[in-house]
């Protein structure tokens, strides 16, 4: 039989839960066992109490899993009833979190340099990867995009992770380049593609598709973290399927990080 998900249901406590940008919150939960297990690019599935009509957990990536402190940092956008409810959870509140979910980033062996491209709320798993790259002393370039300056997150995080070069873009020009962050990424790959061995991207699907295409043109390996509506998070329901060149693959087990070349965009 295939390997079942290593996920378990873990108790957790909200440590903090505060807005960090327009409609974006930073949530820190304490869940020591899970914090130790998580790898960059995986996700967790959190139960948000308070609405008996809404039964499913919410899948969320994380920006950092601190094994020592036993905490997990999640950044989430308030987009609907569930995330709105999550934003009302106060420090000290307890719930359960299912994880670790899926499989994360695979940094190629001997990677010399990486290009990270994050759009909107796609930043957390990319930031998590940036820290891992820093730990391994692999230099990287970051392109971050957001709708507007007040929705931009992660800049400080990437700086703290020692990023030498962050290129910012906003749809409305309120910060950095006026336009999509894909422009910068495409340019980097076109002009300096040979220096890179790895592209990682998370954000809106059309953005990732562009990045994947540019990476393919430049002949650089590319991984993308995909989102799907997930009912279970551990391979039991098939609601999270991603169309790949070798058939349908569950985002919760075979992803959320996929080899971008495999994905049918």
């Amino acid at each position, binding site marked *: 039989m295939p390997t079942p*998900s290593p996920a378990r249901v873990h108790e957790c406590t909200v440590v903090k839960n505060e807005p960090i940008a327009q409609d974006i919150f930073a949530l820190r939960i304490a869940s020591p066992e899970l914090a130790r297990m998580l790898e960059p690019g995986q996700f967790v599935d959190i139960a948000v109490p308070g609405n008996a009509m809404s*039964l499913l957990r919410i899948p969320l990536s994380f920006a950092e899993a601190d094994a020592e402190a036993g905490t997990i940092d999640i950044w989430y956008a308030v987009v609907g009833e569930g995330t709105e409810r999550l934003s009302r959870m106060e420090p000290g509140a307890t719930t359960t979190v299912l994880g670790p979910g899926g499989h994360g980033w695979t940094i190629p062996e001997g990677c010399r340099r990486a290009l990270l491209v994050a759009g909107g709320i796609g930043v957390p798993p990319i930031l998590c990867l940036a820290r891992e790259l820093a730990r391994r002393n692999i230099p990287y370039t970051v392109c971050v995009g957001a709708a507007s300056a007040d929705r931009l997150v992660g800049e400080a995080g990437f700086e703290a992770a020692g990023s030498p070069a962050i290129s910012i873009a906003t749809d409305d020009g309120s910060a950095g380049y006026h336009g999509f962050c894909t422009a910068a990424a495409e340019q980097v790959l076109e002009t300096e593609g040979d220096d890179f061995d790895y592209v990682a991207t998370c954000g809106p699907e059309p953005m990732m598709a562009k990045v994947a295409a540019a990476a393919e043109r430049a002949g650089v390996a590319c991984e993308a973290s995909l989102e799907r509506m*997930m009912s279970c998070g551990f391979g*039991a329901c*098939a609601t*999270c399927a991603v169309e790949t060149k070798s058939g349908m693959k569950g985002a919760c087990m075979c992803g959320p990080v996929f080899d971008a070349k495999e994905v049918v965009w």
Partner: protein
Amino acid sequence: MSSVSMAVDFAGIQLKNPINTASGTFGFGWQFQNFFDVSRLGAITTKGCAAEPWPGNPKPRMTEVRGGMMNSVGLQNPGVRGMVAESGEFLADLASKGTAVICQVAGHSTAEYVAALELFEDLCPWAAAFELNVSCPNIDQGGAAAGSTPEGAAEVMRACRPITKRPLLVKMAPVRLPEIARALEAEGADGLTVINSIPGMAIDVHTRRSKVSKPTGGLSGPLLHPIAVRMVWEVAQAVDIPICGVGGVTSGEDAAEFILAGASAVSVGMASFPEPDAAVRILGELEAWAESQGVRDINELIGAFEC
């Protein structure tokens, strides 16, 4: 150990207890093995499989609705051979531990049901029974399209009945149940699983589009429960073959309602998503309820609804 005997005979399958899992919500069982010991359950029902693999529907395949969820998976499955290669070992082992493995059979046409069942019959000696899914709301041919009339359902049953001596169950669509149940009984069905998801619709009022990739999807969850209990009761009055109740079970009391309405077994469905060990919790609660009813044997409570 509880003082109540929980073993039941469901369609000729001896179950150590009445708790089963709903097809499509429990994968092929092994997905749950890390969360709890699956062999504590009376039975599991595996995801519907066809003779050949099916890709299922495009994304999005799911949306939450008040009191449940709506899916349009469209019976994505690895085909019987793929299923056996992937999960056969686990399922054989589970069967050897006394948990009945019920394999669900999918098809787009009578011929496809026959082809799939033939493969199952050949390749799955460990299967305790087979369940014909003539009720999936998310495929255009077969599924509910086949099973929503007495004639359609009977046709599939008639073609499949000769293929196996093992118990043959039918997963029913939530329409015209008494009539269709009688037709299936007449064709030799050993048991009926009542009900599959009810077709629903959820529109994103901003984009004016369906929240799943097709206009409609199949509803699951507590919202179904009172409807499903009524349907089980109606079927129990219409036929003599046993029934497995499905729909919105999240507690032992929900399961108890099905038992009282006439079900011999009860399947836990989407409750297993947020709470992977829901089925075993529900089993415990059902047992406690049976005890509180002062019976020695859960069988005394099957159909014990008083009206």
